[in-house]
Structures are given as structure tokens and as C-alpha cells.
């Protein structure tokens, strides 16, 4: 099974030793590795971004991905979800035929959840999002449990397809020392717009139909009565105030 996993770097540093790969993409990668273990094939990690994003690929290789491809070009900057999906599509096209694209249901920052289904449209394949359980009764067919607000749907999908996963689908493995050593030998392929045969007008900000036109601050008309100092006093004052406001 030829599998591509879209990974995205998260801003790291908040927690020491924190993964460079977004939380949901780690689940997508784990799911890809499990399918490969069962059916054979190859797992390719794919990302688009500025140079630090390469860290996510190093980590994917250490976890067991066979190949890593980095779509890196200053002209990709400022892309909205449509331009991002288009760029990823050209990357996958250059990689050659594949059976399954796995991605996280939404990024940890934008959280739009749009890139997956948009990428599926570019690829011309079906997609299932919000997948919390995935079974493969046959190598050309998947059975997915897709979460709803309160409940779920069972969806059967023929490959090739795109599947976007949510938390809880699996427990991602940790990279091993061997994995990290092997990763250094695998290397990362870097492609820019020309490598992809992609018209630079169709990527980045220029290729994005949405425009950020204004940033504004909201004013919150809240009381902002903040108590500090010795905890005993602060707690007493705060609870007394909440009582006065009639909510306790």
C-alpha cells in the first residue's frame, strides 16, 4: 500500500521534548505505519512550509516513514487552505501513484479542517474526515468510524482515498534510537514550485481566493476584578464576590 501522510510542524518549545509534529498528524502517521506493517508498501511523509518545518519530517522518518518530501519555496507563503491543498496535490502528483492519503483532521493552529477535503478534491478521490477508528477489511477498501457531534457514522470507502483522523484513533509510537539513526540516512527531498511544475501564480497568497482585510481587537466589557496575594484571602474575596453577583 502506497501511503502519503501530510504532517505539519507545530510551534514547539512550550513543553520540553514536545513533538514537532502536530498532535493529530502524529495519529495519522501511526495509522499509516500500522497499515504498512499489515499490507506492506511504503509511507511517505509530506509537508509544506518554511525551513524549520523540516523538523517534522525528521521526526516522521525517525518514527518509521520511508521517505520524506518537503515542499519549500518562499512563494508558498501566505497560502490559504485552497492554495495549500493545491500545493500538496502537486507534491503528491510528483511522487507518483498512491493508494491512501492520511492527514490530521485539523491543524493545531488554524483548526479549519479544510485542507484534507480540499486536497481530496484536487486528487479526485473520496474522503472521510473526523475518523476515530479505521479498519482495513481488504487492501483496497477501508471501513471508517467517523465522529459526529453526538454519535458516529460508519463509512465504507474504496481506495484510492483521503482519510483525516481525530484524536483517540491510536497511540502514536515514540521514535527509537535506531529509528533516529536510520532517519539520518534516509534524507529529505526538497521541491520548489518549478520542481512541481506549479505556476507560481497559483500558490501562496497570490493563489489564495481569501484575503485577510483587517485585524481588530475586541473589547470585553467584563468586570475584571482580579484578586491576588495570599491565596486564602484571594479565594475568600473571589467567592464572596461571586455570591454577590448571584451565581453561587
Amino acid at each position, binding site marked *: 500500500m502506497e501511503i502519503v501522510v501530510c504532517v505539519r510542524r507545530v510551534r514547539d518549545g512550550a513543553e520540553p521534548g514536545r513533538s514537532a509534529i502536530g498532535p493529530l498528524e502524529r495519529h495519522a502517521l501511526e495509522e499509516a505505519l500500522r497499515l504498512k506493517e499489515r499490507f506492506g508498501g511504503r509511507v511517505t511523509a509530506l509537508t509544506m512550509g518554511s525551513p524549520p518545518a523540516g523538523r517534522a519530517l525528521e521526526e516522521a522518518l525517525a518514527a518509521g516513514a520511508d521517505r520524506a518530501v518537503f515542499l519549500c519555496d518562499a512563494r508558498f507563503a501566505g497560502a490559504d487552505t485552497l492554495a495549500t491543498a493545491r500545493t500538496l496535490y502537486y507534491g503528491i502528483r510528483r511522487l507518483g501513484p498512491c493508494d491512501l492519503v492520511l492527514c490530521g483532521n485539523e491543524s493545531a493552529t488554524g483548526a479549519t479542517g479544510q485542507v484534507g*477535503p480540499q486536497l481530496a478534491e484536487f486528487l479526485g478521490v473520496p474522503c472521510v474526515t473526523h475518523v476515530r477508528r479505521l479498519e482495513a477489511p481488504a487492501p483496497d477498501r477501508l471501513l471508517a468510524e467517523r465522529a459526529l457531534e453526538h454519535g458516529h457514522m460508519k463509512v465504507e470507502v474504496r481506495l484510492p482515498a483521503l482519510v483525516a483522523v481525530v484524536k483517540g484513533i491510536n497511540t502514536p509510537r515514540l521514535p527509537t534510537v535506531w529509528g533516529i539513526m536510520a532517519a539520518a540516512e534516509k534524507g529529505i527531498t526538497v521541491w520548489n514550485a518549478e520542481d512541481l511544475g506549479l505556476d507560481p501564480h497559483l500558490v501562496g497568497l497570490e493563489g489564495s481566493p481569501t484575503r485577510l482585510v483587517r485585524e481588530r481587537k475586541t473589547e*470585553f466589557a467584563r468586570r475584571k476584578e482580579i484578586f491576588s496575594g495570599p491565596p486564602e484571602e484571594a479565594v475568600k474575596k*473571589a467567592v464572596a464576590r461571586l455570591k454577590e453577583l448571584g451565581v453561587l
Partner: protein
Amino acid sequence: MSVARDDGKFCQPTGAGNRIAFRRQNSPSELWVWAEQRRGRLLPVSLELLGKARELAPALGAVPAAVLLGQGVEEAAGELFAHGAEKVYLVDHPLLRLYQSDAYADLLARLAGERGPEVILLGATTLGRELAARVAARLGTGLTAHCVDLYVNEEGRLVQVVPGLGRGTLWEYVCLRNPQMATVKPGVFPVPKGDPGRRGELVRVPCDVREESLRARTLEMAEEEPAGVSLEAAEVVVAGGWGLHAAGGFEPVRELARLLGAAVGGTRPAVDRGWIPEELMIGQSGKTVSPRLFVSLGASGAMHFTTGFLGSGVIFAVDQNPGAPIFEVADVGIVGDLRAVLPLLIEELRKRGIHPPPPN
């Protein structure tokens, strides 16, 4: 392994967006709302969107219309008229009984290609976000997610307001192409008052979808009632964030919730740490709540989180960082070491005789 690899589908050089030529009609333009239904019942967000659509329609010079896909759902069309739709496109077919992503996306995109609506709004639900993204890609147009407000600017374009990164920041987007598409968080606009006497034009759209054409097939849908007090309906909500790791975890939130008879929720980091399931996440990509009292423990107050509870009656926040943005949206707050403050807070509430309400 030979797997459906040579059918060429995957690697055709046809980009989405080229497939459906978008055409603008001479007749008055329309502002569409996808009327999402489950088992024939409309979701409240669809009515919320119709209320907003009615409000925006004059400035856009457009007519509010709804698109209703399903099986045996004609009755719901009446409800859509009552809540502001002047036109309802109805596609009624046995294969549309459950949400079928291929068929729903095909039908909505094709209909939009033919009719040329100015705007398409969908609820930012688990299904709405998927459908919106597929249709937008097929039409080659832009899409914003989780809007918290919409208005029409001087140029007559739809301004889509989404929570930005950073404290109290909102980002306003416009879409350069038509249709201008957005998904809107459930619960941010009120459900308009329905007028059962209102009628509109019902347009029956023929549907030629065949079972073989469904590459992804929804086999069944199971709905689960949420356990315990539901977040959206709760009078009091206690939510926790990443800062609780310093206090040994999420337990203080649960204890306080028991004490106050409250529902439990949390931030994205709380979900990522495995403290709470995804469906209890509050914020931009989670639930929107507006309880009488909202209590936030150990959350710094990123805009992605605060968006989910700004409509609450009173907001009470506890965090150790005095500069945390959570205190800018709080009515009452305590700055202090969570390990010291939380046990004292629980103790103080017990002492003051606050007990959970008796079970019904």
C-alpha cells in the same frame, strides 16, 4: 500489491476548481444556507444561519434561500420558509437519507454552478465543514471556517470574522471570488422567531445519483446521548487548561464541577493531554457555551478557547500568570499558584454550604 492504482484517478492533472464553471445568472442573486438535517430534523444552526441570511440579504441585494438534501424531508422545507428562506431547493432521494459525502458534494456543487449564488453558508459542524471544503474546492472559491460574525462591507462583499491568534484578536476575511463561502459556529447567532404563515418557492431538483457512484458510502448513523450534564445546556460550566499540569492534573476541575453541579469542559491542550475527550473541548473548533457561570482553571485564555464562552453570564478565572489574557475576559479572577488556590477554593465553597443540586 496491486491496488486500484492504474485507474488514473489519483494523479490526473486536473485541479479542482476547473471542473465546474461558475456562472452568474441575471435573475436576482441568492444567499444560500445548507439546511443540515439528521433523520429529517433540522439542526438549530441551519435556522440560526437563515436568520442571519435574512439580515444580510438586503445589503447583498440577494434573496435568502436554503438547500435541503435528504429523503422524505419536504416537511422541513416549511420550517425553512417559516424561519426566513424565500426559496428552498429540495433534493429528495432515497440515497440521500444519510449524509453521503460524494453525492452531497456533487449535488451542492452542481446546483451552485448552475444557479450562481452570491454566498453559501454552512454550519461549522463535523459534516458541514467537510462538505463546505469539498464544494469550495470544486468551485475553486475561498472558504473560511468557524466564523463568529458576518457582515457586508461598503463594496458589498461578505466580511467573515474569525478568531485570530493572540489575545482578543479577530481577523476579518473577504473572498475574492463567488460564491463567497463560510462555515459558522453553531450557537453564535440566535434562532430567529419562526412565522408558520410565511411561504416561499419550493424548487424540486431532480437527482440522478446512483449507488455505484458513491466511492465513500455511509452505511449507518448512530446517535449517542451525551453522558451527564450536557455542556451546551449546563447552567454552570467548569473548564480546565494546560496550566493544571502544575496542580497534578485535571481532577480539581471534576471536583469543582461535582460541587457546583456543573458540566466539565476544557481547552485544546487539555484534550491533547488526554484529560478530556474531544467532544468536551470548548472554543473555536469545539463547543460554544453560554452558561450562567463559567469557571476557567489553569487556562491562559487563548482566543481559540475564549471564543467558546464569551456569551456566558459571569466568567470566573483562576490562573497563575497575572498577565494571562484570560483575566481580560473575566469578571472575577484569582491569580495564584494553582496548587494552593484550588484546594482552598474547593474548601471555601464546601464551607459556604454550596452543594450540587439534587438529582432529578
